[in-house]
């Protein structure tokens, strides 16, 4: 079988900002036609990575290829074929939804004769046909976010870069956006999505790359990652803090991997130790277990 074409290929990418190393030897592959989730805590280097893909940040070392074009040398060619949905809403608020899309259809070089259809198509994808002539500052938060995604799709890109697509949104709006992104994925759009929401990566991504301290520490399908790093079952033991310290020490002494979940101690791989473990609530191991295990319990 032929190896799949890579939409994004990063090898040994480094980026420093003064004393701080934001990206530290990053390797990343995004095969065409897949949705890859870049999962990591704040400060893991996700945003810097996204910026380097569009040459808004320059790598200090390493190779970056986007859709076969070298970045930053041929970034302009690559950008013409990419759609970018930024983390922060930067729509023109005094313009209507349609006007926002029309400007970007031009910027993305959609030929004049096709622009109207391109804008209509993007409005349809984002389910904003009825609000096409509404000014952006009169749209709801969810509609604005959908419009932001539509703006990234107006030229029918081969690759979509989504930077924290649902950060800071209501659960209802998040569901709505997930449905939209899932529909794009099903159509075959290649997507790289950075997120620090585990559920988002679990639901939308074909494969997940977990980032910590500027590099990928694990990659694979969400279910495989869970099995490989966290086992099948997790046992959560509740109790007063002193008891939790005890439970943790005992479990670690018995060779279990353990993590704190705020109010409980979670013992990973609990399926192996029937009988010898304390009383607690058993649940299926989750991607969150893997995430915390690999990226650390402490938040920087």
């Amino acid at each position: 079988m032929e190896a799949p074409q890579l939409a994004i290929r990063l090898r040994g990418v480094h980026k420093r900002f003064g004393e701080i190393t934001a990206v530290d030897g990053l390797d990343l592959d995004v095969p065409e036609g897949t949705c890859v989730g870049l999962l990591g805590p704040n400060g893991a280097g996700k945003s810097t990575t996204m910026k380097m893909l569009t040459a808004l940040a320059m790598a200090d070392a390493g190779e970056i290829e986007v859709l076969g074009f070298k970045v930053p040398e041929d970034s302009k060619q690559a950008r013409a074929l990419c759609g970018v949905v930024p983390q922060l809403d930067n729509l023109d608020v005094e313009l209507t939804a349609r006007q926002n899309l029309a400007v970007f259809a031009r910027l993305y070089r959609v030929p004049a004769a096709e622009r109207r259809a391109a804008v209509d198509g993007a409005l349809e994808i984002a389910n904003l046909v009825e609000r096409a002539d509404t000014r952006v500052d009169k749209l709801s938060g969810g509609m604005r976010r959908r419009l932001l995604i539509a703006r990234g799709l107006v030229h029918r890109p081969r690759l979509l870069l989504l930077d924290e697509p649902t950060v800071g949104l209501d659960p209802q709006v998040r569901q709505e956006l997930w449905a939209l992104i899932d529909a794009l994925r099903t159509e075959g759009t290649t997507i790289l999505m950075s997120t620090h929401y585990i559920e988002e990566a679990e639901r939308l991504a074909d494969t997940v790359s977990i980032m910590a301290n500027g590099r990928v520490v694990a990659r694979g399908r969400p279910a495989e990652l869970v099995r490989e790093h966290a086992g099948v079952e997790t046992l959560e033991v509740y109790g007063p803090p002193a008891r939790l310290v005890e439970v943790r020490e005992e479990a670690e002494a018995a060779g279990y991997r353990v993590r704190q979940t705020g109010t409980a101690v979670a013992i990973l791989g609990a399926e192996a130790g029937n009988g010898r473990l304390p009383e607690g609530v058993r649940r299926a191991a989750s991607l969150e277990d893997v995430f915390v295990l690999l990226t650390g319990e402490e938040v920087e």
Partner: protein
Amino acid sequence: MTTTTAGRLRRRLHRLEPAAITGVMSRDVTNFMTYWKATTFSSVLDPTIYLVAFGLGLGTIVAAVEGMEYVVFVGTGMVGTAILFSSAFGAMYGVFIKHRFQRTYDAILAAPVDTEELVTAEVAWLGLRAGVYGCAPLLVTMIFGLDPSWGMLLVPFIGAITAFGFAGFGVFAAAAVSKIDHFNYIQSALLTPLFLVSGTFFPIDELPQAAQIASNFNPLYHCVELVRHAVFGLESIDLFHISVLLVFAFGMWRLAIWRLEKRLIE
């Protein structure tokens, strides 16, 4: 989702592509349509108020300057003021807000547009806008008794070239400052003196010689001279004036690109 659009762009993209520049300008124009009434209102009312005040006030004390009525002298000079403020402030505040508050430039640079094209488009748009609106004082002065002349048709072009330079300066300033409040320093220490010693309100040759020599480094002075000469008759020295303005515009354009790129690309 590959379609013909993506296919067509397999051609090699170059520097300073007209499509990128007009694309960025189309954003400016679309936004301008939402606030042009306010701009037009102040562009017409401001010189009217100035000319009424100067005509009724100073005009009674100063009868004529350089052989023209004082109100006409100030009115033609105010073309330069209008151009300076429209382009320099438009660029300073506009670019700062779009870059740091609205994050518009992140979106534009994610498209196949470079900083060089972005700056060129912003400067070109502000230049064209200032070239047109710079004529407002001239039209108002005609109500106060200025006779029309063919040379006036050159004024929008002189205005646009001057405005390219000051817009470039404004982009540079917006990229250089760390806080929007720092524009106060630029306004008070640089722009206000430039406009007061440009020959708008009084002729430069009344000043000490050192100030006269210094005013040659003031682009606005060259603009004011050119505008008056365009209205009343061009002279050979105008080749010098236009050359200074062209050098100024080119220099500021490159400086703005260099500084904004440093600011935008990490």
